[in-house]
């Protein structure tokens, strides 16, 4: 045992809470379940902060590199001579950072849900699932090896499935949950095959071994190639596909907007702040390996990230469902993080992208959770998701309005809010590596500001709408988390990430790159201005612009028909042209053959049955003829 052995409690407490509420939750009042869950998460949060403080500051000797510590490990399953699945806890800068993110957001969501979910049927179930999710997510980030990560990866997927389908009587929620699970499962298949290939080549699952400077993977660099890429590149690309699925990267993003069918706190926790960034975390976790042995895979990462962020940002401008806008925004922001990882190098200032990505992950978790919880508060008071049915809400919801505005400003990258810093570093890293990607991201920064303020103006300003009953500010349990997260969104930009979370563990000199920062602030301001003119002043009429854009607008409004494409593939191709023929083939050809055998035997026996007529003379005739024939055969012919 060592100084960090208490970290074992961090995942175990939520697990215990899950089992406790899951098995006994129906025995007592729902609110008690909520309190148990929240209390559990409080402990987890405290422990996480303790871990972070001691890891980053108190136990750290200044000037040395942050090392990764394997705090705890047990054997879970012996596979081969070399391969063993272990369960353990690994502490290093990114995992400790993720601990803070997850526990903070999760705790806030737990508190928030006490108000938001109050009186809902299945309140206890909700908290059980939340605890299950927290357990899985914490286990994921603390994983010591890639297989443990896969285990928790799947668990996270299931928690997400269960929470999206929380309103199980609502068909749309059910199909959304199904879709989310299957799409991510498809991506996980890539992850699994990637793991298989990696473990086959390196004979290890262990992260520390894999990413060390004498990684066993290095000896395979010159190995066999397939379609022009080395096997290692393929393996790591497949692993990235797993990450892309979880992080809703193009073209595996289609589940994320639908996942908004889940309760809003869930969207805030899982589909904004934590689970969807697991893909980023995965790539970050294996980042040394990527940059050492498969830089080609990183190029793919960067482009996928870039395309996703642009794609999502465009769609976000056309959506009316406020949660969907936020969902596309999430996808877009994760695209930023992926891109930053993709353009990053390893070590020192080259690792700027890596640092920026993690920083953005952190700040994004804060402001996006804030925005989602804010949206939740709005929905809670208006009972609608559609921004066309809202307006002028700033009068009714002052706290929500204020915090939401902070969120919008942060995501738009207005200094000195945290989003500005992290986004700036990403843009700097992109400019350094690939100007084309930089151009995309620069554009996206502007679009982001536009669609966020489109949302903001539509909801909080504009026409005064008639509501069925007057919207009212949410209770304190809901507004306090908003304020806490707003605090985080404002100030997390001042954390010295360049000293804490770097690619090689060593601090490096980072500063605001004014040649990037000033234009990016300008384009953000431009985006806000456009939104202001269109939706506040209405000097530009949105409909006119929409019609002038024509097909492009319609395409974006219909999410570029990605859902339809998937539906086509799944329903038409897989169902109609694979599954149905397989079922038909089985019933008619395979089973038909078997039945044919039975049928022909039956028919044949009906034919033979005539011989067994019971007529003695016929028997006699056959007997005599047979005897004569046999004699002829044996005597004359043989």
């Amino acid at each position: 045992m060592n100084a960090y052995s208490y970290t074992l409690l961090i995942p175990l407490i939520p697990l215990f809470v899950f089992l406790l509420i899951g098995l006994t939750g129906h025995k007592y009042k729902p609110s008690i379940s909520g309190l148990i869950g929240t209390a559990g998460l409080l402990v987890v949060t405290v422990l996480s902060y303790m871990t972070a403080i001691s890891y980053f500051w108190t136990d750290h000797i200044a000037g040395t590199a942050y090392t990764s510590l394997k705090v705890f490990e047990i054997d879970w399953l012996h596979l081969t001579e070399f391969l063993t699945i272990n369960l353990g806890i690994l502490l290093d800068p990114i995992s400790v950072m993720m601990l803070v993110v997850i526990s903070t957001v999760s705790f806030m969501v737990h508190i928030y849900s006490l108000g938001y979910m109050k009186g809902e049927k299945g309140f206890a179930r909700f908290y059980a699932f939340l605890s299950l999710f927290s357990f899985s997510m914490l286990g994921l980030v603390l994983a010591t090896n890639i297989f443990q990560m896969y285990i928790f990866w799947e668990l996270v997927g299931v928690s997400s499935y269960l929470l999206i389908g929380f309103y199980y009587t609502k068909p749309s929620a059910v199909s959304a949950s199904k879709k989310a699970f299957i799409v991510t499962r498809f991506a996980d298949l890539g992850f699994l095959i990637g793991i298989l290939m990696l473990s086959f080549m390196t004979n290890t699952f262990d992260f520390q071994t894999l990413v060390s400077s004498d990684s066993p993977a290095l000896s395979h660099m010159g190995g066999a190639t397939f379609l022009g890429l080395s096997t290692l590149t393929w393996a790591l690309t497949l692993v990235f596909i797993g990450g892309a699925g979880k992080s809703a990267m193009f073209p595996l993003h289609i589940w994320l907007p639908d996942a908004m069918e889940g309760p809003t706190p869930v969207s805030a926790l899982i589909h904004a702040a934590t689970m969807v960034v697991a893909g980023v975390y995965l790539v970050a976790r294996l980042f040394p390996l990527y940059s050492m042995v498969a830089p080609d895979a990183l190029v793919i990462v960067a482009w996928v990230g870039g395309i996703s962020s642009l794609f999502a940002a465009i769609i976000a401008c056309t959506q009316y469902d406020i949660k969907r806008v936020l969902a596309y925004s999430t996808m877009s922001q994760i695209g930023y993080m992926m891109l930053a990882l993709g353009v990053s190098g390893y070590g020192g200032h080259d690792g700027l992208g890596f640092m920026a990505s993690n920083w953005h992950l952190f700040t994004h978790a804060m402001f996006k959770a804030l925005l989602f919880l804010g949206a939740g508060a709005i929905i809670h008071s208006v009972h609608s998701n559609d921004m066309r049915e809202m307006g002028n809400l700033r009068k009714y919801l002052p706290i929500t309005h204020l915090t939401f505005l902070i969120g919008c400003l942060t995501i738009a990258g207005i200094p000195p809010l945290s989003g500005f810093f992290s986004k700036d570093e990403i843009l700097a890293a992109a400019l350094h590596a690939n100007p084309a990607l930089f151009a995309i991201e620069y554009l996206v920064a502007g679009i982001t500001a536009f669609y966020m303020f489109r949302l903001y103006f539509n909801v909080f300003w504009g026409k005064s709408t008639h509501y069925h009953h007057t919207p009212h500010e949410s209770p304190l349990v809901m507004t306090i988390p908003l304020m806490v997260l707003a605090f985080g969104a404002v100030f997390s930009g001042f954390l010295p990430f360049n000293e804490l979370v770097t690619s090689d563990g060593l601090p490096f000199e980072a500063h605001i790159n004014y040649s990037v920062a000033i234009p990016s602030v300008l384009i953000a301001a431009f985006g806000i201005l456009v939104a202001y003119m269109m939706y506040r002043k209405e000097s530009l009429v949105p409909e006119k612009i929409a019609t002038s854009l024509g097909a492009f607008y319609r395409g974006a409004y219909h999410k570029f028909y990605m859902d339809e494409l998937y539906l086509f593939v799944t329903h038409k191709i897989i169902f109609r042209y694979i599954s149905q023929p397989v079922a038909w083939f089985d019933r008619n050809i395979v089973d038909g053959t078997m039945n044919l055998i039975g049928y022909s035997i039956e028919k044949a026996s009906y034919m033979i049955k005539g011989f067994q007529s019971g007529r003695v003379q016929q028997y006699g005739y056959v007997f005599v003829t047979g005897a004569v024939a046999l004699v002829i055969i044996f005597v004359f012919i043989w």
Partner: protein
Amino acid sequence: MNILTLFVLIPVVTMLAIGFSKSMKSIRVVAAIGMGIQLILAAFLVYAYLTERAAGNTAEMLFTYDALWFPSLNIHYSIGVDGISVAMIALTAVVVFAGIFASWEVEYLSKEFFISLILLASGVFGFFISIDLFTMLLFYELAVIPMYLLIGIWGSGPKEYSAMKLTLMLMGGSALLMVGLLGIYFYSAPDGTPLTWNLLEISKNTIPIEMQRFLFPFTFIGFGILGALFPFHTWSPDGHASAPTAVSMLHAGVLMKLGGYGAFRVAIFLMPDAAQEQAWIFLLLTGTSVVYGAFGAIFQKDLKYINAYSSVSHCGLVLFAILMMNQTALNGAVIQMISHGLMTALFFALIGMIYGRTHTRLINEMGGLMKVMPFLSVVYVIAGLASLGLPGLSGFVAEMTIFIGSFQHTDSFHRMLTIIAAASIVITAVYILRVVATLLYGPIRNDHYNHLTDARWFEKLSTVTLLVCIAAIGIAPLWLSDMINFSLAPIVTKLSMATSSFVSIF
């Protein structure tokens, strides 16, 4: 008395006791007590086995006993267990126990029903403890025959057709098997020494390669038919659909495992050279089974058909892993047998319970059951998650062991096949979630369902027993996998000595 003989004796005593019981109540109580003792005995066997191993006993088979019962053919009642059989016995005991409670309310000819059911179980137990090939085959037949009656009399739908089909196809398998086993018998010992049926002794001798080439397909397909090898799997959907609940449970849960166990214990173990040579053919077939079964399941509308096709897929994976012939894959195969046995038994139990309430098995006629029968629905969801390989439940352990083991194969053809087989996890997710979504979620489609009740105590007992085992394996697989591994080591050594004349396609 040998502890293993008890496994055959207790069912016999139970059957006698049932025979003397008067009322339906006492019949099922007797059956439950008998199988409860069996379950306890199985638990004790696991414990005794582990203690023995811990004490350093490294014999290949433990608790052996041998008695000659047919001298002119040298047939022995020869029994013994290793880690694999112990695991299978434990599985059988659990499934049978759960099966008794799942058929708690069989009213029609209940005495005969329970007697047949337990007769079937005793055949299965006998099969797993036998070392003598002939005795093994004898118990195998003993397990298959009652199936005909159980489906033909207590089944539903086109039960006569299904019972006939199932029995005939399995008997066809037995015929192939008989040829294979007789062939093995006649080459079981070097010239001049008496022939033997004993597995361990045969394994010390090498069957000539020409004979292996000839006998291996017979033996493997013979067992493979029972293990739902494509394209001999079609008895499974019809048979399962028509069978009563407990029979489906036992059949899919245990009887199909006889196929996998036999294919591995007899076909691969005794004829490794031919296995190496011909593996690629059967790998293609089983690989097809895996994907094909899963695709087939997507399109089905009847719950039992869905599950039957899913069994085809999962059992295909068992045979697939067996053919990979390395320790990890074999280990995975055994775990998959156990895991699938528990899962599918649970599924069939649940389907039976749901059917007993709604009187339909068509998923699009049902919906929203979560609201009216939360217990059954939650268990169904968990079983579904186990089936699609959720970590923490047994399916994940089994599948991952198989995939990793198979992928360790040095040949790239095998690795490609592994990737294809791994793709089944996605397809599995599709059909499982489709069922869960249609059946359990959503609004209630039929007003009558509002009055349905949730599980009764015996149903809860049945499902929880299985569920606990599934979770136990899923959470702590190490003891099971180590127990199996230990017993696999000598087998793998023998396999690795086999001359591999397989020529890679790539």
